[in-house]
Structure formats: C-alpha cells, structure tokens
C-alpha cells in the first residue's frame, strides 16, 4: 500500500468538502435569486411542507418523547449525586426544560430530518438527474433551481421551526411522565420548575438553530441530488453523502450558533 495513502485520502476528502461547500453556496445564491417565482410555485412549496413537515411528525414524536423521558431520568440521577433528593426534584423541570429548548429538541429533530428528509431529497433529485429528468426540465426552459430546489429549501426552512416547537412540547411531556410516574415528582413541582426558570432567549435560540438546520439540510440534499452521476449506484452514494454532510453540518453549526447566541 502507498505510504501516502492516508494523506491523499484526507486531501481528497478536504477537496470534496470544499467543492460541496462551493456548490451549496451557488445553489443558495440561485435560490435567493429566484425571488417571486416561489409565489408562482406556491403549490409545490405546500406539497414539500407536507412531505418535510407533516409526514415527519410520527418520527419526531417518537424521538422527542423518549428524548424527554431519558433526559429527565438522567438529570435525576446526576442531581442526586450532588444534592439532596428533594432539592434535585425541585430543579428537575427547570434543568430538563432548558436542555430541551436549547439543545435536545433542535439538534435531535435536525438529525432526524437529516436522515429522513436530507437523504430522501438527494435520492429523489439524484434519481431525476440520472434519468435525464433534470435535463428535460432544462430543455423545457424550466430552471431546476427555481422549480425543484427553491420550494424544497423554503419548506425545510419553514417547517423545521414548527417541528422543533412540536418536539419541545412532546419532549416536555415525555420528561413529565418519567418525573411524575417513575420519580414521584408532582405536576406542580415539575411545571413550577419549568415556569420559574423559563427564559425566552432559550426558545428563541432553539428556533434560530431550527431555521439554520432545516434550511441547511434541504440545501445540502438538493445540491447533492442535483449533482448526482453514475446511475443507481450514484443515487445510493448521494443518499449516504447527503445524510453524512447534513449531520456534520448540524453538529458544526450547533457549536457555531452556541458560540454566537450564548
């Protein structure tokens, strides 16, 4: 094996990331430049909102309820190690709520959407690319960026905050169920904790993250799909690539946004 194999592979990966970033930027510029065409294509936007938003609700529900449940259980375990049980249970609602609003709901919903939507957008558009449907749009003088990418990006951007608000509510419910029925915390104690330590900025920061994650995931899925080549194998590779890059994007931007917002 070539002794520079690792170096070459790393270099190739870095170049790929740079190339992809350039493509995402160009696609974003194209989408932002499409302006009023969204009004003309509002039916397509609504269809995508249904696919990306409404159809994701069952999966987001399952992920959120267990996220809330496990975070309540873990928080109780950690608090009991450093303070009395009574004091720990008083803070449980507040601690779990802040974690859900700031981090758990936006990031986990983002990762769910990356797997469900980012990958499916790449597969759908990739399949259209390899079967010449994108070329057919071009020959009919229909811009694929305006007709395909802009509605999907808009739907991702707008539905992700809605899903995160929904995930916030469901995760709180999951946390309350565990706190009340398994840890013996009364409803009043749990929700007093949530209310007394409620900070609007926490919710706002979660929604900012949702906007960035939703728009980014749709953008990455569309860009990778539109640049697919190589038949069925190429579509498969694009699907995996879209999930990997979307997940990476969410984790990196979660850190960047945390630095900017707090």
């Amino acid at each position: 094996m070539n002794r520079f194999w690792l170096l070459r592979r790393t270099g190739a990966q870095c170049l790929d990331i740079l190339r992809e970033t350039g493509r995402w930027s160009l696609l974003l510029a194209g989408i932002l430049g499409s302006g009023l065409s969204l009004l003309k294509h509002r039916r397509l936007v609504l269809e995508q909102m249904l696919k990306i938003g409404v159809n994701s609700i069952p999966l987001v529900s399952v992920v959120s309820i267990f996220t809330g449940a496990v975070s309540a259980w873990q928080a109780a375990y950690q608090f009991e190690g450093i303070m009395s049980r009574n004091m720990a249970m008083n803070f449980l609602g507040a601690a779990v709520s802040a974690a859900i609003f700031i981090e758990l709901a936006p990031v986990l919903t983002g990762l769910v959407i990356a797997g469900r939507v980012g990958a499916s957008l790449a597969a759908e558009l990739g399949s259209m690319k390899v079967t010449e449907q994108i070329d057919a749009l071009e020959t009919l003088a229909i811009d694929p960026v305006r007709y395909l990418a802009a509605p999907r990006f808009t739907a991702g951007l707008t539905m992700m905050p809605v899903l995160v608000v929904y995930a916030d509510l469901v995760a709180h419910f999951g946390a309350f169920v565990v706190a009340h029925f398994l840890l013996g915390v009364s409803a009043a104690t749990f929700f007093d904790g949530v209310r007394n330590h409620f900070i609007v900025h926490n919710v706002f920061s979660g929604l900012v993250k949702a906007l960035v994650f939703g728009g980014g995931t749709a953008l990455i899925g569309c860009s990778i799909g539109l640049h697919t080549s190589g038949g069925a194998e190429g579509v498969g590779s694009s699907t995996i690539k879209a999930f990997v890059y979307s997940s990476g994007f969410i984790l990196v931007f979660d850190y960047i946004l945390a630095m900017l917002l707090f």
Partner: protein
Amino acid sequence: MIEITGLQKLFDDRIVLRDVNLTIPEGRSIVIVGRSGYGKSVLLKSIIGLVRPDRGTITVDGVTITGLGRKQLFSIRKKMGMLFQSAALFDSMSVYDNVALPLREHTAYGAKEIERRVLEKLSLVGLATAAAQPPSELSGGMKKRVGLARALIMEPKVMLYDEPTTGLDPITAGEINLLIRETQSRLRITSVIVTHELDSAYVTADSIAMLHDGVISFHGSVDAFRGTSDPVVTGFRDGLRRGEGGLS
C-alpha cells in the same frame, strides 16, 4: 437554421468533438449517424445548450447560443424541443401533467385552453386516452410518444431527437419514425435526429451526416449516403449489414 462552426468538446483529456462544422437549413430534417460513444448525443446536447463546448459556435435561428447567459439560453430553448433516448418523463406526474407543464410555466393560458392544447398534442401522437396514466404504466414506445407530445407543446421551430427508436421493437420503431416524419413535414420544423439505426435514418432524413473521430466526415442526401464509396461511411454501413447478417 442551425449553424455549427469549429465545435470542440473535451471530457477530461478525451476529445469527443474535434472540429464539427455543419449547417442545417430551416424546415429540413438531418440525421446524424455514427458509432455509439462517438459524441452524437454530446453534439445534440450542445445544440440545446445542455453541454457547453470548449471551442466553436452554434447559431440557432440567428442567435449564437454558445456563451449565452442562462436567461437568454432559456428564451432560445422555448423555440426548441428535445426527445430524450429514455423519454425522460417526470415520473411524479401523470401523462397530462407532463405535457401541460411547459404551458403552465411559460404561458398565461387558462385551464381550458391548456386542456385543449394538451389533448390536441396527445391526439397527434395517438395517446389522448392515456392522459390520466402515470408514466410507469406506459410501454417504451408510448413513453417516447408522450415525450414527443411534451416537446411539441410549445410549438418549437427546432426539434432534437436523441436515439428516438433505440430499444423499441421494429413495429413501434417504424411508427415513431413515421411520426417524426409527419411532424416535420406537417409543422415545418427543423429536425436533428441522432441515431445509429440506418433504417430509421433512411425514413426520417432529408440529409444524413456521419460523425466520426470528432468531425463530420460525410454530409449528403439519403441517396448520396447510400451510394457513397467514402470508406468511413461504407465501413459503418457494411458493419451494420454484417452485424444483421450475423444475428440472422
């Protein structure tokens, strides 16, 4: 009229089109023949701006399309139609919606007028009854017909056909050939047909051009193509005959 001058296209280091020069008069039908993988489809896609040549110019209806911006290119494409080898129908839409899409995107016609025009074009290709079907339920020949109806819906001045009969049975291929010929003579459309099937070429062509080694090595009438002793043309013609003989 389409005028191609000094066209060159490379993919990586491989020269696909070396120096293509070709003039296609208005309202005429030209068939470009050549071996598979010799750049016929690349030439066709260059004419509609899907492939950007590295050198040379293509002029369509008096407008040089090489080097045009997207907006101007889209405006030229509204005068052109293309039938893809795979038909490239949008599989998420019905046959009707496939054909109606360009009208919805580019005109202000109401639903009634769109319906009238779509059904007129579907009748032209003999598929008015299949309007509600999804493309997945159509045969290969039916898909090509729908693709043709979709390409014709904006009443283009230029039609490009990429291997229109490849993969079809002889009867369906013959029907498609007649449809292409009828469309061209009835609507006076300038047609460029890429194929490696000589039977199809002889039916649909006013003239035949041979693309070989990145250049147009022969261009003449159907009779001239049949009678020429040009070694490249005879090699292609006789090669096909040998192949047919070998199979029978």
